[in-house]
């Protein structure tokens, strides 16, 4: 009997890119629900617009590049990466932003940051963050009009109002929008008020900003699931959150009136979303075990620096992009010791 030989290993593990992307998208659900709870329908509109636009641009680019759009289960458009990029971008946008904000962001992320660099696996920068940063720099007004959380909002805008703001650009949204807690803290600190005075504002909750602390907790929950399932390495979020905590502890110890402590910074803004879902984008992150710790630490320190002294209230996107640049160098200098090499060849197990 004749056979057609293949090469070893013949066993194929159960993990696939699409399953990985699916699990990461699934882990976003608690965070999405929390954001929906606090910010209403605008969050879902952003997600739907960004995800659909991302998928459409992915399909368009695959077609332009002469690649099959959906050649098989789990590849092309089906690999789930475009959907995830869309979701992450959508979660970063202010609720009730005009419809072209998510669409333009998805265009930048998928076309410029992903496919022009060679598509899946070849993008040096986190596509969702490129999309976000381009929007933030180009349309600062639209990108900083955040709704306050529902607790602080007398009456939530109706669905009709929401849709007409998003799709027709009707006037009246300004009446609702407010500075986010991080933004408020920054502005007020700039006016030489003390932290004590500032946080008496109802914007600030028990730990972080009102509502924002629960949103961050929900992302932390999703992140814990991903660490447990082995889909992300604890080193990146661990490094990033440590970086933020270390910096915040250091400065609050120096001057408690001018700086806020680690708990506030960890549970404000995009800290948890960034640590578990954005910094962990494998393609643009560091890949060595030690390198991932340094990479995460670097992001955390940069987030704190930008929040405290930079031009923007939050700094996750810029911090991630800056560390993306450094990732190849970090990888080069943090190669693990190969088995059977080095001085310490005797001793208990190491990982």
């Amino acid at each position, binding site marked *: 009997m004749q056979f057609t030989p293949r090469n070893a290993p013949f066993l194929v*593990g159960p993990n696939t890119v699409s399953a990985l992307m699916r699990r990461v998208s699934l882990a976003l659900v608690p965070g999405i629900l929390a954001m929906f709870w606090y910010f209403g329908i605008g969050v879902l509109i952003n997600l739907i617009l960004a995800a659909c636009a991302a998928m459409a641009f992915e399909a368009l680019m695959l077609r332009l590049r002469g690649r099959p759009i959906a050649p098989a289960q789990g590849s092309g458009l089906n690999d789930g990466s475009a959907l995830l990029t869309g979701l992450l971008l959508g979660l970063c946008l202010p609720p009730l932003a005009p419809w072209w904000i998510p669409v333009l962001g998805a265009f930048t992320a998928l076309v410029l940051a992903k496919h022009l660099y060679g598509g899946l696996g070849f993008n040096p920068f986190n596509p969702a963050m490129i999309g976000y940063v381009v929007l933030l720099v180009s349309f600062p007004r639209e990108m900083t009009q955040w709704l306050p959380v529902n607790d602080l909002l007398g009456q939530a805008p109706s669905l009709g109002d929401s849709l007409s703001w998003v799709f027709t650009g009707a006037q009246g949204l300004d009446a609702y929008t407010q500075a986010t807690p991080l933004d408020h803290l920054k502005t007020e600190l700039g006016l030489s008020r003390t932290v004590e005075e500032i946080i008496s504002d109802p914007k600030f909750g028990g730990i972080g900003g009102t509502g924002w602390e629960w949103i961050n907790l929900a992302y932390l929950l999703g992140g814990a699931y991903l660490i447990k399932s082995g889909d992300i390495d604890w080193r990146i979020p661990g490094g990033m959150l440590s970086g933020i905590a270390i910096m915040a502890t250091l400065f609050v110890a120096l001057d408690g009136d001018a700086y806020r402590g680690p708990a506030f910074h960890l549970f404000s803004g995009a800290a948890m979303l960034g640590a578990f879902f954005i910094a962990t984008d494998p393609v643009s992150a560091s*890949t060595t075990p030690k390198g991932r710790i340094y990479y995460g630490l670097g992001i955390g320190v940069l987030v704190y620096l930008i929040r405290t002294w930079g031009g923007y209230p939050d700094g996750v996107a810029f911090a991630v992009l800056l560390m993306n640049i450094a990732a190849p160098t970090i990888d080069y200098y943090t190669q693990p010791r*190969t088995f059977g*090499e080095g001085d310490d060849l005797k001793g208990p197990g190491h990982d």
Partner: protein
Amino acid sequence: MLWRFHGGLKLAEHKHESNRLPSTPVRLPKTLTVPLHQHIGLPAEAIVQVGNHVLKGQRIADGVDHISAAVHAPSSGTVVAIEPRPIPHPSGLSALCVVIDTDGRDQWIDREACTNFLELDRREIIRKIHDAGIVGLGGAVFPTHAKVCCPVVPTELLIINGAECEPYISCDDRLMRERPAQIIEGINVLMHALGTERCIIGVEDNKQEAIDSLNQILMLMDEGERIQVRALPTLYPTGGERQLIRVLTGREVPKGGLPANIGIMCQNVGTAAAVYEAVVQGSPLISRMVTVTGAGVAVQQNVEALIGTPMIDLIDQCGGYEQGVAQLVMGGPMMGFALHRDDLPIVKSTNCVLAADKNELPTRPTPLPCIRCGECVKVCPAQLLPQQLYWYARAKDFEKVQEYKLDACIECGACAYVCPSQLPLVDYYRYAKSQIRAQARDRIKADQARQRHEARDARIAREAAEREARRNMKKAALNAVGDDADKDSKRAAVAAAVERARAKKAGQQADSPLNPSSEPAE
């Protein structure tokens, strides 16, 4: 105390399918095809001729060097051909085989049994191992005599590998259950030859019956002090030599070195049993335990097969193929290789014949690009960065590949197993390794050519200098005898002659095929 190595995989074991039935001998085939190259090193050279009658256990080929192994007739019969035949090899190529038509009598040569091996000295034992053609039966088939004869430092610890970490394979398991006394006696012989006082048998804890059976014999023989059995956590690839040493001793074999460098020797359980048969019974290595398994065969079990038996005979004895058999693999599903036909002979390294259907060894889906997730880094037992090796191998940047220590890769396939992009990573590593080997060969050739060229240049320069010296001497002699009057004319004549010689030489050099400009590129 046990240690752990980095990474590794928990795989579905699939050992129960084949390890429940006791092993049975395979019926004597009509024709035995015995390859002359069944070991690492140089092929053996046939010492029989076509038409010779041979007896079971008669040596039919001699090892030609220290790293080589003898080959024996697995049964009695007539040599009908010595010619290239297809052999089980990843290349699918043919190699020289001695083909024996068996006579059905299965008649042994006179065997030299030994009642007390403790009376033999080290040298005699090694000679017996050498003459029996024993090689490492775990799969690496390194000649055992070469390993035992000259360790660089005295062997403090003998490790017997009964880990059998690859899924599906259960031949060592059955051997440990069925012939523990032979294994222990073989270990005693090896320890005697090595002057070693300590031995650990490492067995994965999914083989409790094997562990019990070895312990029982050790108790009966009162050897529990010197020889210990250790149950190891089941984790692929614990059976890798370096990984096993790490788990049992916490020590790492230096990269590029051998276990012998740190006073350790590893032998497979099958090898230990073969040593017993060779030294105590006087029987050479002519058969081995083979696992016949996979959903593509009717009865999954272990068989004792003569070397040279066609694989299809094993399959037939196990009830033949099942519907849907799709792939025939020699060895396990992680490190074995696929065969293109089933009439290939069993060789000394055949531990398993895996007849798999489509579902158990599915075709690898079309690969996606690497997303640098680092799953491969997590599982690599050599602590490498497989994603970087892949990246550079793909770019054919072999210098970088070496910088990232490709030579430490044991090709266990753990990285390719976990890769979510389904990249055939090991294929890239094998490719890079072969290219690096080819480049090294080319470099040696280029170095030799350059050395030859430089030697030639030096010789030409030396000869020219010698000629010049002779001429100067002659000139001096002439000057001394000649009078002043014709000095000038003589000088002119000499100058003209020198000029002619120079012109001639220049012409010759230009024509020469070994002109400096033809120096081979590095």
